[in-house]
C-alpha cells in the first residue's frame, strides 16, 4: 500500500500540474533547432530519387563552387575514414552515404555543408548524381522467391532473408490443431507506419578542435547509448563526447536509432572545426527514418466447441526494408512479439517470424510500443474475435471464458513469459458496464433490422514493458538497467538526474513526485534533469514504456538509500539509537515520543553542517536498477462505431478505455498519455500507412498523404482504471505510455468487423479508409 502524502508534498497519486509546462507555454523550450552556436553552419542531405539503382557517378563540382558552400561529403569520402557504413542496432550495417548503389528511395547520397540553410539547400540541388536503375522489390513475399534480385550484395548470404526466429513447442501445438474441434484463423497485415513526432530528427554537432571535445545536441531518446555508439563507431574517446538531448518534440520510438544525418554532421564538424546543424524536413523524416510494424501475420486458434482455447499458432513475415535497423534487445529479433498469447490461458503455442529485405526505408522500430507488442496484441485480439464469430459466441463471453484467472499469477505463458500480476476480468467488467454493453447489443440488433451498420469492438490487451532484466535484455550489448542520482542540498531542496529522457511524458514532474513520496520533500523542491551525458548517470533511455518501471524504481531505491543515511543523521541529532526511530512522511521521530523529531530538511542541513564524526558528509545517492522481471500492464478497450452506408465512412461514436498500470504516480499525466496513445491508435486504424508503389516510390511522404488526425476526427475518450500493482516494482507501478497504442487498434478494427460481421466479413486490414469499407459494402450488395 502506498500512503498518500499531502497535496503540498505531492507524492504518488496526486495530479500535480507539470513543472515543464511553464517554459513551453511561453515559447521558451529548447528544442534542437533552437540551438544556435557561434560560427554554426548548416548541413543538407542529397537523397536518392530511386528505390534501387547503381550509383554511376557523383559530381560535386558545381555545388562546391556555389558561394557559401563549405563542403560536400560523399560515400567515397566517408569510406576513406571507414565511415561509409555504420552498424545498426540489430546485427546489421547501414550505409551512411551510399557507395556502389542505393537501396531505397530517399537514401542518403551526399551531405552538403554551407553557411546558411538556404545555401545548403541550393547546393544540394547542384550535386549531380548519375544512377542506373535496378529491379525493385517492395513485396517481402517476392523478396523470398527464388531468382529474386539480391538486394544486399555486401552480405555473404546471397538472398534477401535476414533471420528466422521461433519460440514455443511446434510439435505439441501442431498436435493440438490436429485434434481441435474448432480452428479459426486470420491473416492480418499490420501496415508500415511512421511515428511522425511533430518535431523531426536533427542535431547540432560541435567539435572543438582546441579541446578535442565533441558536443552533439541530438534528438535522442537514449543519449548515453548514443554517446557510447559514437565512441565505438567514430573512434572518439568517450570522455571527449558529450551528448545533450535537449527538449524533445515527441519521440514515439523514432528517436531511438542513430541516423546517417547525425553521422554526417559529426564528420562535417570534425572536418570544418565548426558547429554543424542538420535538421530533417518532414518528408525526409517520413521517407527515411525508423518506420514501425510492416508485419504480415497469420494467427490460428484451436478451441473446443464451447470456446475454450487450446492453442495458438502464429507465422509472420517481417519487412525490414533495406537494412535491419530494428531497435530492439539483441536476443529478440522479433522483439517481444511472443507476448502474442495475450490475456488468455491455454497450454500450447508456437510462433515463428522471418525477416526479409526490401527496397524500402530501414527499420523497424517500436512506435509507441515495447518492441513488437503492438503487433502481438493486435493479432491475438483480432484472432479471438474471429474465433468468437466462428463459434457464434459473444466476444466478451469468449474472452471471459479464456482469461488467465486472477489466482494464477504470477503466470507462466506458453511462450515463456512470467506475467507479474493481472485481473483481466475486472478490467473488462468495468469497461462493459461503463459502455453499457448489453444495451448496445440490443441497439445493434434493432439497427441491423433497419439496415443500419453499427459495431462494438473489444480489445483485452496485455503489454510487456520495462526491459531489463539485464540478464535477458540488452541494446547493442549494453544491459538494460536504468538509473537515478539524487542530491539533496543543505537547505533541503534537491536535484534528480536520470538515465532516461522525456519526450513529453512529464518526467520533470513524475520523478519529483517519487522523491516526494519517498522522502517527504515537496515535489516542487526537486529539480529533475535529463539528457546531458556529462551530468546524468548512465542509462538506456526512454522507450518501450521503461521510464517508470526501471528509472522510476531507481528513483525510489536511491531515495531509500538517502533515507537510510538520513536516519543515522537523525539519530545523531536526537541523541538516540537509529533503531528507536520511526519514519513518517518527511520526518523521523522517536518511537513513543512523536514530538522528538527531525524533519528531512533539518537532517539535510545537518548532513553538511553537523554530521556524525566518521560519516561522509552530504546527502546523495545513486541507484542503477536492474528489474527482476518486466511489468505487464493490461486493460480492456471498447469501441462503438457507426458506418455510413452511403460513403463507407466509419464514425467512432464512443471509446471506453479501462487501463490497469498498477499504482499511478500522476493520474492527470496517465490520462493524458492514454488520450494521446488512443489518438495515435485511431490514426493507425483508419488513416496511416507508409505505402510504396511498385517502383518503390513512397506514397506517404508528407502530411498530405500520411494523415494525422485533427481535433475534428478525434473522438472524446472515456477513461477509467483498475489497479493491480506490480508485485516486484518498488512502487507497484507498471508503465503506461504505450498501452493505448498497443491495445486500441484491435478495438477499432474489431468494431468495424463487428458492424459488418452479419454480411460475412471476417477481417479488414488497416488503415480502414472509407473507400475500403465502401468497396466491401458494394461487394456485399449493401450499396449499389
Amino acid at each position, binding site marked *: 500500500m502506498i500512503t498518500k502524502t499531502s497535496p503540498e508534498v505531492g507524492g504518488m497519486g496526486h495530479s500535480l500540474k507539470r513543472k515543464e509546462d511553464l517554459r513551453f*507555454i511561453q*515559447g521558451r523550450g529548447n528544442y534542437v533547432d533552437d540551438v544556435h552556436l557561434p560560427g554554426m553552419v548548416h548541413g543538407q542531405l542529397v537523397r536518392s530519387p530511386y528505390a534501387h539503382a547503381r550509383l554511376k557517378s557523383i559530381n560535386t563540382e558545381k555545388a562546391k563552387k556555389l558561394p557559401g558552400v563549405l563542403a560536400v561529403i560523399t560515400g567515397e569520402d566517408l569510406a576513406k575514414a571507414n565511415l561509409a557504413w555504420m552498424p545498426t542496432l540489430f546485427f546489421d550495417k547501414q550505409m551512411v552515404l551510399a557507395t556502389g548503389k542505393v537501396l531505397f528511395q530517399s537514401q542518403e547520397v551526399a551531405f552538403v555543408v554551407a553557411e546558411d540553410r538556404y545555401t545548403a539547400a541550393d547546393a544540394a540541388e547542384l550535386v549531380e548524381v548519375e544512377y542506373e536503375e535496378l529491379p525493385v522489390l517492395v513485396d517481402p513475399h517476392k523478396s523470398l522467391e527464388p531468382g529474386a534480385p539480391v538486394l544486399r550484395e555486401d552480405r555473404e548470404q546471397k538472398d534477401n532473408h535476414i533471420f528466422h526466429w521461433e519460440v514455443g513447442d511446434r510439435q505439441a501445438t501442431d498436435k493440438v490443431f490436429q485434434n481441435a474441434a474448432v480452428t479459426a484463423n486470420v491473416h492480418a497485415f499490420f501496415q508500415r507506419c511512421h511515428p511522425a513526432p*511533430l518535431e523531426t530528427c536533427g542535431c547540432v554537432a560541435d567539435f572543438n578542435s582546441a579541446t578535442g571535445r565533441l558536443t552533439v545536441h541530438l534528438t535522442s531518446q537514449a543519449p548515453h547509448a548514443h554517446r557510447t555508439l559514437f565512441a565505438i563507431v567514430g573512434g572518439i574517446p568517450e570522455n571527449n563526447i558529450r551528448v545533450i538531448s535537449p527538449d524533445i518534440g515527441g519521440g514515439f520510438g523514432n528517436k531511438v536509432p542513430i541516423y546517417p544525418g547525425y553521422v554526417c554532421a559529426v564528420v562535417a564538424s570534425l572536418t570544418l572545426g565548426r558547429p554543424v546543424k542538420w535538421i530533417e524536413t518532414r518528408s525526409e523524416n517520413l521517407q527515411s527514418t525508423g518506420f514501425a510494424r510492416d508485419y504480415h501475420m497469420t494467427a490460428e486458434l484451436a478451441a473446443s466447441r464451447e470456446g475454450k482455447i487450446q492453442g495458438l499458432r502464429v507465422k509472420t513475415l517481417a519487412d525490414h526494408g533495406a537494412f535491419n535497423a530494428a531497435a530492439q534487445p539483441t536476443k529478440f529479433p522479433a522483439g517481444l512479439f511472443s507476448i502474442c498469447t495475450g490475456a488468455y490461458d491455454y497450454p500450447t503455442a508456437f510462433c515463428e517470424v522471418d525477416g526479409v529485405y526490401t527496397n524500402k526505408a530501414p527499420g523497424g522500430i517500436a512506435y509507441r510500443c515495447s518492441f513488437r507488442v503492438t503487433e502481438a496484441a493486435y493479432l491475438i485480439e483480432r484472432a479471438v474475435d474471429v474465433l468468437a464469430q466462428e463459434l457464434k459466441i459473444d466476444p466478451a463471453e469468449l474472452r471471459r471464458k479464456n482469461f488467465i484467472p486472477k489466482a494464477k499469477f504470477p503466470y507462466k505463458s506458453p511462450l515463456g513469459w512470467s506475467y507479474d500480476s493481472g485481473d483481466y476480468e475486472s478490467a473488462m467488467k468495468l469497461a462493459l458496464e461503463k459502455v453499457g454493453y448489453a444495451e448496445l447489443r440490443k441497439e445493434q440488433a434493432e439497427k441491423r433490422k433497419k439496415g443500419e451498420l453499427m459495431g462494438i469492438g473489444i480489445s483485452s490487451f496485455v503489454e510487456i514493458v520495462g526491459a531489463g532484466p539485464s540478464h535477458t535484455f540488452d541494446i547493442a550489448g549494453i544491459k538494460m538497467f536504468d538509473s537515478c542520482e539524487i542530491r539533496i542540498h543543505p537547505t533541503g531542496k534537491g536535484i534528480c538526474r536520470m538515465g532516461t529522457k522525456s519526450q513529453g511524458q512529464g518526467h520533470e514532474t513524475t520523478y519529483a513526485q517519487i522523491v516526494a513520496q519517498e522522502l517527504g520533500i515537496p515535489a516542487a523542491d526537486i529539480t529533475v534533469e535529463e539528457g546531458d551525458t556529462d551530468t546524468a548517470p548512465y542509462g538506456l533511455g526512454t522507450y518501450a514504456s521503461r521510464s517508470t518501471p526501471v528509472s522510476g524504481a531507481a528513483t525510489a531505491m536511491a531515495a531509500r538509500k538517502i533515507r537510510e543515511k538520513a536516519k543515522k543523521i537523525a539519530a545523531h541529532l536526537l541523541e538516540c539509537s537509529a533503531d528507536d526511530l520511526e519514519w513518517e512522511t518527511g520526518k523521523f521521530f522517536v518511537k513513543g515520543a512523536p514530538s522528538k523529531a527531525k524533519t528531512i530538511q533539518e537532517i539535510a542541513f545537518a548532513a553538511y553542517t553537523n554530521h556524525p564524526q566518521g560519516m561522509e558528509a552530504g546527502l546523495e545517492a545513486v541507484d542503477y536498477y536492474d528489474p527482476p522481471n518486466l511489468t505487464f500492464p493490461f486493460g480492456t478497450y471498447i469501441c462503438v462505431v457507426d458506418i455510413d452506408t452511403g460513403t463507407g465512412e466509419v464514425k467512432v461514436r464512443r471509446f471506453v478505455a479501462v487501463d490497469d498500470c498498477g499504482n499511478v504516480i500522476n493520474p492527470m499525466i496517465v490520462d493524458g498519455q492514454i488520450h494521446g496513445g488512443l489518438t495515435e491508435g485511431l490514426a493507425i486504424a483508419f488513416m496511416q500507412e507508409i505505402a510504396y508503389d511498385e517502383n518503390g516510390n513512397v506514397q506517404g511522404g508528407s502530411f498530405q498523404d500520411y494523415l494525422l488526425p*485533427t481535433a475534428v476526427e478525434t473522438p472524446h475518450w472515456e477513461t477509467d482504471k483498475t489497479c493491480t500493482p506490480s508485485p516486484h516494482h518498488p512502487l507497484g507501478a507498471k508503465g503506461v505510455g504505450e498501452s493505448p497504442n498497443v491495445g486500441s487498434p484491435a478495438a477499432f478494427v474489431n468494431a468495424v468487423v463487428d458492424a459488418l460481421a452479419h454480411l460475412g466479413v471476417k477481417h479488414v486490414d488497416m488503415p480502414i479508409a472509407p473507400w475500403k469499407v465502401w468497396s466491401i459494402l458494394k461487394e456485399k450488395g449493401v450499396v449499389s
Partner: protein
Amino acid sequence: MAKKELIRVRVNGRDREAEVEPRLLLVHFIREVLALTGTHVGCDTSHCGACTVVLNGKTVKSCTAFAVQADGGELLTVEGLMKDGKLHPLQEGFKEEHGLQCGFCTPGMLMSSYALLETNGHPSEEEIRWGISGNLCRCTGYQNIVKAVQYAAGKAQGATR
C-alpha cells in the same frame, strides 16, 4: 543571392526591421533573424500548424509565407502572449488542464486558440475543435486542449461579468 529587401514589422508590440532575402520564409525571419524560437517548424507544408502566428489579426502558417509579406504588418507570436508578467488565460489553461505534453505544437495551438477567442469568445466544443483543426498534436489527443481553451474562455467571461 537576390537583392535584400528592407522590411519593417511590429512584432509583439515592438518595431523591428531587417534586410532579408525575398525568399526568406516568415518562420525563419521570426526564428533566426528575430531569435524568437517559440514558433516551430513541424512539416514545412502548412499541414501541422506548429508555425502558426497571428499576422494583422489573422492566423498565418509562417512556414508558408515570406517574410516580405509581413512588411508593414503587426505580428503576434507566442512570446507576445504574456502581459505585465502575467500568463495569458490561454497559457494558464494549457497548464491547468494538461493541454500539452512535448510542447512542440503548443505555441501554434496557443496562437490559433487566441485567434479563435478573439472572434468567438464563447465557442462550443465543436467550434473549438474546428478552430484548432489546422494544428496537429501528436501527444494529447486534443481532449485537454479543448478543455484548456474552455478554461480561457470561461476566465474571460468571468472577467467581463
